[in-house]
């Protein structure tokens, strides 16, 4: 690159790249290292030497605890998605029409579940449901997960709305469409990729959620994260590596797809919004 003239500048650049490579390795290698560990035929947490085996995946598929936990997580995550996506989408559209001052207050309320520590949310639900006998039921978990997931839907759909080509809406208006018709027939189809991305974020928020589940799920509602948490805590085995591998693949595919949808929805290949977290 022509911008780098002096030797010291080139040395600085090399040091920057070298350091960054180490940080990238720190970020990615621990995640990737789990994959070969899960293919190990022994009960030890070492890389397979020569022979690889799907033994630990068979173990997951045949263990009623793991399959039951997977079923629960799926059920709760789907219900959460079905609640959080419409609520968040409608609110994001409403926000797009709002003025700045009221909007700031409403955005603060909607994003509050991202700010409050999950443990505080978890015990709030525990205190609420324990006297009502709702601890140990799926309903409490679905409601709590929806509250945690909804900010992501609003953020993503709102970003899609900002990237909208408003000429299309004005064209519809100049052709005589009423506002509500524009909303349903023009606006919603245009932001559909953003809504789909928001739905995936909502699904993954619930599917991955550990803390609230640990507090308010009973033995019947054991979710995959609970199963995994207790596996790590009590008896760590290559089965954990296999489950982690499956979850890594699932979240990479789903959230990778959501990221592509989101970028398409925003109409530009920008960076991830800073406030979207997992």
């Amino acid at each position: 690159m022509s911008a780098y003239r002096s030797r010291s500048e080139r040395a600085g650049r090399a040091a920057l790249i070298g350091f960054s490579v180490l940080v990238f390795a720190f970020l990615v290698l621990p995640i990737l290292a789990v994959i070969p560990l899960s293919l190990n035929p022994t009960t030890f947490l070492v890389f397979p030497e020569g022979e690889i085996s799907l033994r630990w995946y068979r173990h997951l598929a045949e263990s009623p605890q793991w399959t039951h936990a997977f079923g629960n997580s799926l059920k709760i995550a789907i219900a959460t998605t079905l609640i959080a996506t419409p609520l968040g989408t409608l609110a994001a559209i409403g926000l797009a029409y709002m003025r700045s001052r009221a909007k700031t207050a409403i955005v603060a309320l909607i994003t509050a579940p991202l700010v409050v520590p999950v443990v505080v949310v978890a015990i709030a639900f525990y205190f609420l449901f324990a006297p009502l006998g709702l601890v140990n039921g799926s309903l409490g978990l679905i409601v709590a997960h929806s509250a945690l997931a909804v900010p992501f839907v609003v953020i993503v759909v709102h970003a899609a709305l900002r990237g909208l080509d408003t000429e299309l809406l004005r064209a519809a208006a100049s052709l005589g469409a009423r506002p509500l018709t524009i909303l349903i027939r023009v606006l919603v189809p245009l932001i559909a990729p953003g809504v789909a991305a928001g739905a995936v974020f909502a699904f993954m928020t619930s599917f991955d959620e550990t803390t609230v589940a640990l507090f308010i799920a009973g033995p019947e509602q054991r979710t995959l994260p609970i199963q995994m948490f207790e596996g790590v805590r009590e008896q760590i085995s290559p089965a954990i590596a296999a489950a982690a591998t499956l979850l890594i693949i699932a979240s990479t595919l789903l959230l990778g797809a959501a990221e592509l949808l989101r970028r398409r929805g925003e109409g530009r290949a920008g960076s991830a919004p800073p406030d979207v977290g997992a």
Partner: protein
Amino acid sequence: MPGSRAKLPGLRRWWRVALLAPLLLFLLASFVAPVLMMLSRAVVDRDLERLWPDSAVALRQWDGAGAPPDALAATVAREIVATRQAGTLNQVANRLNYDMVGSRSLLYATADRLTAGSAGTTVRDLARIDPRWGQPGIWAAMRHADGPLTRHYLLAALDRRLDADDRIVNVPAEQAVFANIYLRTFKISAIVALLCIALGYPVAYLLASLPERKANPLLILVLLPFWTSALVRTAAWAVLLQTNGVVNNALQTVGLIDAPLQLIYNRLGVYIAMTHVLLPFFILPLYGVMKGIPPTAMRAASSLGAPPLRAFLSVYLPQTLPGVAAGAIIVFTLALGYYVTPALVGGGADQMISASIAFYTNQSLNWGMAAALSLLLLLPLLLMVFAGRTMVRTVPA
């Protein structure tokens, strides 16, 4: 920014409200109300009032000076017997035990003697059952619990208590644990935030200096951990850092160490795993800020003769500081509330305040204490977030 509310076709106010109302109502019911109700338990104290209604009234009428009146003692004695028979005495006993250790056994022993009908109910009679009835401690404990509000839990969360004369005093040294745990929570969060700055700033700078064609594939290396759940990444570290795990094996094979290192169930494990989990939360917003800084400023500085380091320090770095602060605040505030990661890779001495909150919720069932600890976690956090929002707003768009 293309498109804004101004360009969206007009929509009646009624419609805007109708679009927002479902979510706002849902959040009020499913989030705001439960959290506020939970936090209120830090100061609301109605166990004694509910189960001993007459004693609560009598306690509030008593000024607390000198010996308690015999009428009060008679009321308390009557309600001790009534709640013992109803099976609810343990709830009052638990509450009084928080204030004065030994209250529980005192109440039960007294209930048994009173039920047997062998004792009178003046203060002097009660003191014959147990001399503690003649001392100020148990009476002060009851006064402190007479509701509807209490300072007990918040003071306890600060390692303080009310003594029999209602002065705020330090709890005995062996019970003073929370100041330590808060300090530890803040220290771990601050160190993780500093580690994220040290590791993340150069990476964000490199990404921002590359053309998008080259930066986007590298960005995936940041997004991959971002997309993978914190639990899965913590589990990965728990697998890798075991005594005979992959990291120790590799270090031994290379010959850097002779015997396996203890990398997990200690502070080191917590720092490694938490930094890994939170680093993308620092890199991504900072990268966003750096992308917004026009490269022309740096070029102008160097064309005016500033050496590269000088141009970086005096022109580029100051413009990125709001992004650094915002990212560090995000990492710090998220770290403050961490529960799962320290629980899985930390030892007993590495647990953060969330673990204490969980303990008082699940095991000790002292909900007032759990609420007070939550409140003291939430207050500094909200201040930080507010400071962070103000700073982010100053970021040049």
